[in-house]
């Protein structure tokens, strides 16, 4: 077993373990801190897949911004009679059944699909960095690229920022 496989196993174990901690822990602050671990391990998986750019963006946006947002929301919504509590609702058993059934279904479908298993027979390729290619694919005005979706995404962000401010401010 080579080094990359060991790294993959460790990262996958951290990912699944801390994701389970996020959904099962009763203290919501602890759950949010385990969420940081999920995001960090996912960034490691991206590096393993030669996607350094996505890994950096993952650290910046998820482990940085989204976690801070969630922690601030937890801080602002603590009230004395629900302190530290993060209970399951009544449908938890049904939810567990649905999630397990979906997981089994996806894994069964993966084992049945010939096109995917043909591609899966060779290892994920290891080669040089991809940030330049992603930049070309995102911004290039001449060749085939995602300029228009990128601009729409900026518009979505702007609308979300304005919407968050309008929804979240005090009514006067």
């Amino acid at each position, binding site marked *: 077993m080579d080094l990359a496989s060991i790294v993959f196993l460790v990262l996958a174990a951290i990912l699944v373990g801390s994701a389970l901690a996020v959904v099962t822990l009763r203290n919501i602050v602890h759950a949010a801190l385990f969420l940081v671990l999920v995001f960090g391990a996912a960034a490691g998986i991206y590096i393993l897949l030669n996607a350094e750019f996505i890994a950096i963006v993952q650290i910046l*946006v998820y482990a940085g911004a989204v976690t801070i947002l969630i922690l601030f929301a937890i801080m602002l919504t603590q009230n004395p009679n629900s302190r530290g509590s993060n209970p399951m609702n009544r449908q938890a058993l049904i939810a567990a059944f649905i999630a397990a059934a979906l997981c089994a279904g996806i894994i069964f479908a993966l084992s049945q699909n010939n096109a995917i298993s043909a591609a899966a027979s060779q290892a994920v390729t290891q080669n040089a960095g991809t940030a330049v290619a*992603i930049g070309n694919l995102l911004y290039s005005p001449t060749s085939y690229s995602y300029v228009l979706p990128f601009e729409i995404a900026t518009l979505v962000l702007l609308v979300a920022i304005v919407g968050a401010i309008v929804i979240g401010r005090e009514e006067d």
Partner: protein
Amino acid sequence: MLLSLNSFLVLGALLFCIGLFGALSKRNAISVLMGIEIMLNAVNITLVAFSSAFQHSAHGARLSGQVFAVFIITVAAAEAAVALATIIAIYRRKSSVDVTEINMMKW
């Protein structure tokens, strides 16, 4: 082989289902949001794994998976901002973030 496409897809499926369980089974609205974030991460892992596995395919399609992952991260950030603002606004009115108690839009 451990580092093949399938192992990454299975990891993505596992994470997605854990996130789905969290989103379906929690009472606290912020916990529901955390479950959704885990699901989005699982989808990103799947997309990046596909993009790495099919790196030598046709022109332009080479890194599309990673570009889609960038877009998903954008939408997830926007969604988190709006959702948390909504949760705080609801908390200000009802002093609770329990999703089983919030039924203002139900009739």
